[in-house]
């Protein structure tokens, strides 16, 4: 509806520079070996297809230097003026150079999840459209509360932390601590880092089961991979009825919830993330979105996330995108408050 209007009045210089067919869409995640990031790239592909383009899929194996190298190379071999980057930075530290490179080259950029607290898109970055993240404190608390409920408000839990050097891991744990403070009946028996990794979580959980035995009635994990590892360890130990929660809503975890083995997870909707960043850049390049007009809240925001538990697991079994979300007028429909 509003598309033609903004094209007419927007900063036309940039919009005119690119014919829609020249636009280069790039999605970059760590790797294609985990369901969440794979679904993210697939979402990007679906959006690209819907506008008659293809997405360049980049993966950097979780290696920060490689992520930088890849992006710089993409910027220097492509035409940055007509480029959209939808990037999952490896860690907070990687966002700064990505933003600076993209800004210097003039490519539109949307980042997700990780960003240093003092770096903001409105600090003079014209092409860094938006930073999309999720309230980790919130998700950590939501799953904790779902778990406490399943435990009947009391018992002992163990917590599996993610890679300690990420804000996601830290925020989520703060959420758990908040929930614990409000639920004095639940005690935190132990916390260990399991690096967002399934095998590590499996082994750590086994050791913790030895240490605490039947005192464990809940396992809080900072992501689903660890939750699934813990679940397996609990099964191996013959412990049933332990509430296990995670974050990410990977298909396997959603299935486990539907099967009644897991209690809850939180969905950030990977396919949407994969498409939305490209859509923002596409709209900006085609003149349907003026970055300068965006509010601060739109340029760095927490996106809505949904708690998935037994009630809605079946409906979320397969990740899918809703192309309506990517129309230029709906880009900011999922804003759920500014980042801190």
């Amino acid at each position, binding site marked *: 509806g509003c598309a033609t209007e903004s094209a007419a009045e927007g900063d036309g210089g940039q919009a005119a520079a690119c014919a829609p067919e020249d636009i280069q869409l790039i999605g970059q995640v760590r790797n*294609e070996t985990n369901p969440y990031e794979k679904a993210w*790239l697939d979402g990007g592909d679906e959006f690209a297809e819907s506008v008659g383009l293809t997405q*360049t*899929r*980049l*993966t950097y*194996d*979780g*290696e*920060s*230097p*490689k992520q*930088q*190298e*890849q992006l*710089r*190379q*993409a*910027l*220097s*071999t*492509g035409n940055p003026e007509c480029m959209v980057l939808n990037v999952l930075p490896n*860690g*907070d*530290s*990687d966002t*700064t*150079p990505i933003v*600076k490179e993209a800004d210097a080259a003039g490519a539109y950029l949307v980042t997700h999840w990780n960003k*240093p607290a*003092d*770096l903001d898109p409105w600090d003079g970055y014209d092409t860094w459209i938006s930073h999309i993240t999720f309230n980790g404190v919130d998700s950590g608390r939501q799953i904790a509360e779902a778990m406490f409920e399943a435990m009947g408000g009391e018992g002992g839990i163990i917590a599996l932390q993610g890679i*300690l*050097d990420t*804000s996601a891991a*830290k925020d989520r744990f703060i959420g758990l601590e908040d929930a614990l403070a409000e639920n004095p009946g639940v005690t935190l028996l132990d916390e260990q880092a399991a690096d967002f990794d399934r095998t590590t979580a499996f082994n750590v959980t086994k050791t913790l089961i030895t240490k605490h035995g039947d005192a464990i009635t809940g396992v809080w994990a900072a992501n689903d991979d660890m939750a699934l590892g813990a679940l397996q360890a609990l099964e191996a130990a013959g412990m049933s009825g332990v509430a296990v929660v995670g974050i990410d809503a990977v298909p396997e975890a959603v299935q486990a919830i539907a099967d009644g083995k897991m209690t809850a997870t939180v969905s950030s909707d990977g396919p949407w993330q994969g498409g939305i960043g490209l859509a923002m850049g596409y709209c900006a390049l085609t003149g349907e979105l003026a970055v300068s007009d965006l509010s601060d809240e739109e340029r760095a925001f927490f996106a809505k996330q949904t708690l998935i538990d037994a009630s809605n697991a079946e409906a979320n079994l397969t990740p899918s995108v809703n192309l309506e979300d990517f129309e230029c007028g709906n880009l900011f429909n999922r804003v759920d408050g500014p980042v801190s």
Partner: protein
Amino acid sequence: MSVTDKTGTFARLGEPPRLTQTTRRQLLLTVMPVIVLAALVAAIAIANPNFLRPLSIWTVLDSAVPLMILASGAMLVILCGGIDLSVAALASMASVLVALWIPVLGPWVVPVVVLVGALAGLLQGAIHVVAQIPSFLVTLGGLAVWSGIALVASGASTIGVSGSTLDWTFTRVGPWRIPSAVLIAAAIVVVFALVLTFTPVRRWLISIGSSEPAALMAGVPVAQTKIAAFVVSGACAGFAGVMLVGRTYSGAPSLADSLLLPVVAAIVVGGTAITGGFGGIGRTVIGVLIITVLRVGLSVAGVDSSYEQIFYGVLVIAAVALTIDRSKLPFVK
């Protein structure tokens, strides 16, 4: 001397040097790494001609810099028959220290952190030499310890760097907009090349690498040379940490960790023997470029990201198969 007078029959020597088959093969082997590099670049350029743009080429070279600095140091240790697995972790630790200390030390942070790296190398080298523990093990322990220190010092988080103290490590200079990092790396390579060519250091490294007992009996300063190799390797890791902070604007406890295997791969692809005793800085430069081109070039050439690892594996093996000089490896382990 009378000894020589009676030895007429031995004198069947002085055939003039000819370009025999062996010397021609030798020549081919010397230039092979360059040919492999050129072929790779050409293949990528066919898939995506933009790869040969000057800007793109400078970017490749720029991307190679941290790897280059780490590999130069690690190569010394490999030349004398050991291995330094700690370089990447040490560079990560250095990045954290740089980020922490910049507010206090300002530009002095660079020599201080390089010194810290050198001291870490010294510690590892000394344990390796004095306690006679295999370098693989010492540096594996070092790897864990430096990571731990970095985690604790940073509180397991990323420390941002503001200000312009390190801008010189990551900018472009001159009319051709050459990345400053490339110039710095080139300077380091030149220093290495000069030292290795014009001083006895290379002799010592090679003799230790190919026959340590013989080197000992010939009075080569074996312990000193080995420790020095570790010190230089540590210092290079420290400096690589500085360069990484310069380009990421932050220090983080696992910033460079993933560079370990690429570093060793680069050294070996260049043709340096992993068992020691043969190799050099020139080969390492080419090896670093081959690995860097593989790392960044596959996606530029449009290889599907799910197949990228397969391509990378096949190409690395093919590259090594072509570049190493088997006559210089007594036997292949």
